[in-house]
């Protein structure tokens, strides 16, 4: 008997044990299950839930790797140990082992905490409610480290994950039943609970907070700051990055959200494998552009003067909004979450458009924090079922009319 068979018979033997869901979760992650469905209707498809999730994770891996390099790059840049990379995306100053090492030791703990805490809760609930562990956390667990600032304390992340998984998902009945995207629920919790760790100019560069503590302790070192582009714009400061830097992602920001290029790559991969909805992504981009154009129009029509506190963000060229902040990442990886998005095709257009539209609007008007993608997606998550309802009702009405016309 091979290992596979051994594991299977082990499972058979312990059928009634309480902890079995914990075992099968790991078992089915590594091997295909040995059993097939025996009765009832079932759909034949190559992609089961786990395959779908793995595809999304694969689409995110480039962002993760890039995020590690970028974390190190921003760290050394802020400490003045290297020069700004000039060679574009493939710049030799960027892809160095030093950069990767710094980023790796910063990012991997975030990934581990996210997965260990999240899966522990999933397994706990599975055992308690006597069902199999669902794979829902696989994607969430990877999303979470990518959308938090690099210097987020691990215990805070753990608290937020507990909150997000329990309140955001398990209370609604687990994977597939949640109203809100769990990863964004986790980020929203961090954002409201520990605002000083989620905004400002310290948390985006590894080591900046530590420097501040050293200064507070009386050591003679320079403070460093790494303001995000949105942060600078909101304060009306000039931005020292050119458009290609923004596109490539050589800018401060949450771990995995900076590189629009790699997110675009992930988006194409998701669309190609038919896992992510291109309707949502496209309409969301259109929505953002429309809102950006409206703001640009207001500026050029002199409705907003240079002294206004919104001037910086409103006068940003409309298409730059796609490249900065978390817009691209949120649109591609979180707005398209099939559980929380609209289900109907027409609904997806409306849902996506409003996400883009509101993202830029909140980004400009939010007084506390110059970013709106998270809040826009969460808001639209809540409205997604309503949108679907009206789309379906509209369809029913249309067809009823047709029936009546035929009868008459």
């Amino acid at each position, binding site marked *: 008997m091979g290992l596979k068979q051994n594991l299977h018979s082990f499972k058979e033997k312990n059928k009634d044990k309480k902890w079995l869901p914990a075992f099968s979760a790991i078992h089915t992650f590594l091997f295909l299950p040995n059993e097939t469905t025996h009765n009832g209707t079932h759909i034949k498809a190559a992609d089961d839930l786990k395959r779908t999730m793995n595809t999304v994770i694969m689409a995110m891996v480039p962002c993760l790797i890039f995020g590690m390099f970028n974390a190190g790059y921003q760290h050394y840049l802020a400490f003045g140990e290297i020069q700004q990379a000039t060679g574009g995306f493939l710049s030799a100053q960027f892809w160095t082992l030093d950069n990767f090492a710094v980023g790796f030791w910063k990012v991997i703990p975030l990934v581990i905490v996210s997965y260990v805490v999240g899966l522990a809760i999933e397994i706990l609930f599975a055992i308690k409610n006597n069902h199999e562990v669902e794979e829902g956390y696989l994607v969430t667990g990877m999303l979470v480290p990518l959308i938090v600032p690099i210097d987020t304390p691990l215990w805070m992340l753990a608290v937020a994950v507990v909150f997000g998984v329990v*309140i955001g998902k398990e*209370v609604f009945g687990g994977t597939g039943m949640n109203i809100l995207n769990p990863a964004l629920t986790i980020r929203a919790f961090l954002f409201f609970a*520990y*605002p000083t760790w989620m905004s400002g100019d310290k948390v985006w560069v590894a080591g900046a907070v530590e420097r501040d503590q050293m200064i507070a302790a009386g050591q003679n070192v320079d403070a460093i700051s790494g303001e995000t582009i949105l942060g600078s714009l909101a304060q009306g400061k000039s931005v020292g990055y050119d458009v290609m830097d923004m596109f490539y992602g050589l800018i401060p920001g949450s771990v995995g959200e900076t590189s629009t290029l790699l997110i675009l790559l992930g988006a194409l991969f998701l669309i190609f494998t038919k896992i992510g909805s291109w309707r949502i992504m496209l309409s969301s981009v259109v929505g953002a552009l429309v809102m950006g154009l409206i703001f640009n129009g207001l500026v050029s029509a002199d409705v907003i003067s240079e002294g206004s506190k919104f001037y910086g963000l409103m006068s940003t060229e409309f298409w730059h909004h796609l490249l900065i902040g978390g817009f691209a990442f949120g649109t591609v990886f979180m707005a398209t979450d099939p559980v929380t998005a609209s289900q109907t095709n027409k609904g997806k257009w409306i849902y996506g458009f409003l996400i883009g539209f509101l993202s830029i609007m909140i980004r400009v008007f939010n007084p506390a924090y110059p970013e709106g993608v998270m809040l826009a997606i969460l808001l639209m998550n809540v409205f997604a079922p309503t949108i679907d309802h009206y789309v379906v009702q509209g369809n029913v009405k249309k067809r009823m009319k047709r029936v009546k016309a035929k009868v008459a």
Partner: protein
Amino acid sequence: MGLISKKDAKLITDPLADNNPITIQVLGICSALAITAELKASIVMAVSVLFVLGIGNVVISLMRNIIPSKIRIIVQLVVVAALVIIVDQVLKAYAYELSKTLSVFVGLIITNCIIMGRFEAFALANKPWQSFLDGIGNAAGYGLILIIVGFFRELLGSGTLLGFKVLGDPIEKTGLYALGYENNGFMLLSPMALIVVGIIIWIQRSRNKALIED
């Protein structure tokens, strides 16, 4: 039991748990969300409601046979309003700072659904003594939840209890704060109060399955 018969005792104990006005009847939520950021405010609110509901129930019960049923809501409102004004004046006289924290919510005790609910559902149809016990019981059930919510919100949100720094000083970095602990600002916002109440409801119903309604 002497003073209180077994049946009467249930009037007090029922609303504390299995018929709690907040977690089971889901009444009086607004004030539970608004003023529970501090334990002290929760306690004062709980005591105020205890006073208003206890006395109010007795007064309504005494008048139950002479109130014309067409105008009974107005009569009830007058009774609550009179009692609330007393509470408000006492707070302003002896605890001015606190009355500022509670602001309109003392006045809004008038509209607290629990109070009108008990007048309508109980005091109008029962004798003064039972009405008094019912009022005390329901107000205590309400206050209990307020105090539980207030306890967790103040402890986790500000790191204090009744103003005492039980977790250490966040600015001097002593106690827990020396380890890198930080207060959870979300706890001070009303949405978190709703979630805390939700968690209490969840725990209560998973311990007593009979309470789960479809």
